[in-house]
């Protein structure tokens, strides 16, 4: 009981109240419209919560779980903002062994079902520190979403053998910060964790340009 309480506190620190309640409201809208998307969105949110509750206390987690969280997060953001925010999300993997590559892409339409992982995951056996990729993606949505401006978010995850490359680019737009803008993990904290957990196995390149913000992270996975 006490343990799950601590984890719940953990959860609220990591899933921003803003995101949580607006996602719930989006799901509510789907339910009112009796949309077929409603059950899927509920599963996506459940998977995110389960990941944060069950996995993030661990030192290492299967890569596919971290990526599952990212998929759900992006799918829910698309439910919230729809086509008003151009978004390109791709996962590419050319596994080191003979497994065929499995390109995935979401571009502005929710066609992918993120709840069912393929039985033979291309990330099988790969492990990662929990919540090490997610803050960069959250950051892009936090600072990159404004339907009145030239919003554009690109997220690319490229897995090659045991090497992972994450590229996140967002156009800078006006965003009035909500009261809880300091919740979530933040980039500063993640930089420190990378130094601690991947001292010689990561390259992080952050470019804070005039019009856009780019994060390029290469990780050597376990």
């Amino acid at each position, binding site marked *: 009981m006490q343990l799950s309480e601590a984890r719940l506190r953990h959860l609220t620190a990591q899933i921003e109240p803003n995101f949580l309640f607006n996602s719930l*409201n989006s799901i509510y809208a789907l339910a009112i419209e009796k949309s077929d998307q409603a059950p899927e969105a509920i599963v996506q949110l459940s998977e995110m919560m389960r990941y944060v509750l069950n996995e993030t206390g661990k030192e290492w987690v299967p890569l596919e779980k971290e990526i599952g969280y990212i998929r759900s997060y992006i799918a829910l953001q698309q439910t919230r903002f729809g086509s008003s925010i151009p978004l390109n999300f791709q996962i590419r993997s050319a596994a080191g062994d003979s497994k065929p590559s499995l390109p995935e892409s979401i571009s502005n339409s929710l066609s992918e079902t993120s709840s069912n992982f393929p039985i033979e995951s291309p990330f099988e056996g790969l492990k990662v520190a929990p919540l090490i990729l997610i803050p960069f993606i959250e950051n892009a949505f936090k600072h990159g979403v404004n339907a009145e401006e030239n919003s554009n978010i690109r997220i690319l995850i490229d897995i090659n053998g045991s090497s992972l490359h994450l590229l996140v680019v967002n156009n800078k737009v*006006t965003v009035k910060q*909500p009261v809880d803008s300091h919740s979530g993990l933040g980039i500063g904290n993640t930089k420190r964790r990378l130094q601690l957990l991947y001292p010689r196995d990561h390259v992080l390149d952050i470019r804070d340009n005039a019009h856009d913000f780019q994060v390029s992270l290469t990780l050597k996975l376990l």
Partner: protein
Amino acid sequence: MINAIALDDELPALKVLENFCGKTDLVRLEATFIRPGEALSYLRQFPIDLLFLDINMPSQTGIEFYQSVKPGTMVIFTTAYSEYAVEGFNLNAIDYLLKPFTFGRFLQAVDKAVEYFGHRQNKDAGYLFLRIDYSLVKIEIAAIRFIEGMDDYLKIHLQDKPSVMVRMTMKAMLSQLPDRQFIRVHRSYIIALSHILNIRNKTIYLEGKEVPIGISYEKDILTRFSK
């Protein structure tokens, strides 16, 4: 019927409002916007009674947006943050809805807007707008002969028209009526002064109706008529 627009940067939130407004005759949702700029230019062209405003939007907050629209426009704020609700109170918002909200909670907020709208309307136009079931019914104040209290309902007796039942208290009704034209004479009766024929022996005679004067109202009636 009052007309409204809604502004929220998230489409599903607007869908909820569209759905709920579609279920009631109290409010007509004329348009919805995800961009404040478009909402503002719409407001410059068309008169709108009520705004549904999301507070947390990227370009400007709903609170800032409200400060730039015509004073007197009614607003119901919607937000996923409970923190904001307190902050906005000095803006004279009709209500705050915490997302997600039920249809019942939504109706409660719209009712408040309708009541406020009614107050304002009858001041200048001589009409009452009363909520009856899910509709707003317009009643000409000059046509009201007297109002009779019946448990939770009021029966409004009108000149040359069938009477109307409305669910509200005597007190709320009195507050919506012009003071100079109406008087409460009994726990269960409000009377239009213009329809009084004569008063005799603690009874007020209207055409085809005798209304008793309640003991606790005698004094008030006397002072009104001795002026």
